[in-house]
């Protein structure tokens, strides 16, 4: 019985992944704001009024900068959050800013920094794109388009890696 639906599920999954990564590649783009590069935006589909969004940010300048805020017309609030493991307990806590050292990249990613969307007017649906404004202490504000991936996605597929090369700098960022 299980076998009967596993294969179609795998095929459907592979197909969905293909379609999604194709649509992600079409929807996602890189942005430059002064010396700040922003790439690989994505968010997870949600069924509730909260969601999580992620981007990779590269500071190509010589001066430090900070991501200090975010907002979107789709939600009442967008907060910068980080994860704290206290023993076995997972906690999310707002942070006042995410430091961007000169010549380095910070990847917001599941389990690390993320932009928490609070009070979504409509749940985020897989395949759609929504606008998100990012506010930097030095570089200013930019609006980017964020493609929505599946609820269980852990990031854009590697094929759709769109970040401009960092000239040998690590893209690891904070884990």
């Amino acid at each position, binding site marked *: 019985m299980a*076998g009967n639906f596993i294969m179609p599920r795998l095929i459907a999954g592979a197909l969905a992944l293909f379609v999604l990564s194709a649509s992600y590649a079409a929807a996602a783009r890189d942005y430059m704001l002064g010396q700040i590069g922003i790439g690989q935006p994505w968010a*997870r*589909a949600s069924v509730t009024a*909260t969601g999580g969004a992620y981007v990779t940010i590269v500071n190509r300048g010589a001066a430090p900068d900070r991501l200090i805020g975010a907002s979107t017309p789709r939600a009442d609030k967008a907060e910068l959050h980080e*994860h704290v493991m206290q023993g076995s307990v997972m906690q999310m806590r707002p942070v006042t800013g995410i430091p961007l050292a000169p010549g380095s990249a910070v990847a917001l990613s599941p389990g690390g920094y993320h932009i928490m969307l609070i*009070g979504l007017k409509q749940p985020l649906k897989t395949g759609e794109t929504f606008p998100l404004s990012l506010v930097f202490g030095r570089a200013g504000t930019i609006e980017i388009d964020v493609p929505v991936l599946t609820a269980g996605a852990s990031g854009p597929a590697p094929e759709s890696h769109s970040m401009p090369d960092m000239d040998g700098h690590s893209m690891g960022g904070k884990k």
Partner: protein
Amino acid sequence: MRFSRALAVAFITIAVALMVYAAVKYAGLLQRGIGVEQSGTALVGGPFALIDQNGQTVTDADFRGRIMLVYFGYAYCPDVCPTELAKMAAALDLLGPDAGKVAPIFITVDPERDTPAKLKDYVAQFHPQMVGLTGSVEQVTKTARAYRVYFAKSGDTGGANYLMDHTSFIYLMDQQGRYRKVFTPDAAPETIAAGIRQLL
């Protein structure tokens, strides 16, 4: 001189004894479930009665004969819960046809917001077999306690957009409902699938 040497020997003896005592005590703590990944029949889990995503009352007995993979979280959780549920789904996919012998179960620690209808939409996003369980605050609290799960509201606790702090572990229970293993957040789907295979 001789006296002070005797004193030193006594001092060292006591220090060593204390260290041994601390080590034994620490090993005891590990046994009781503060370890990274461990197995055995520790006092984790037990009977529960909750409401599933279709509004039906279910108990632990309904899952007898199947391996239970249990995760506690909440549907408003934007980051860690989807990661862990996606890992459970990936582990099931790795099992192939044997996935049918496993019940992946998501138990909310936020029954106030996570209604059966909400859970139905939520679990369907991860795996067709996934079961979403909620219940009264008392039912959920009792179940979470049985699994040694900590949870508490945080952030905007007065409003509707509060967060939940919670233990983020995946519990592996055998076909008789007995606790066998816990997977910490660093466990890969392959590790979880291997843990399940040991019970097949």
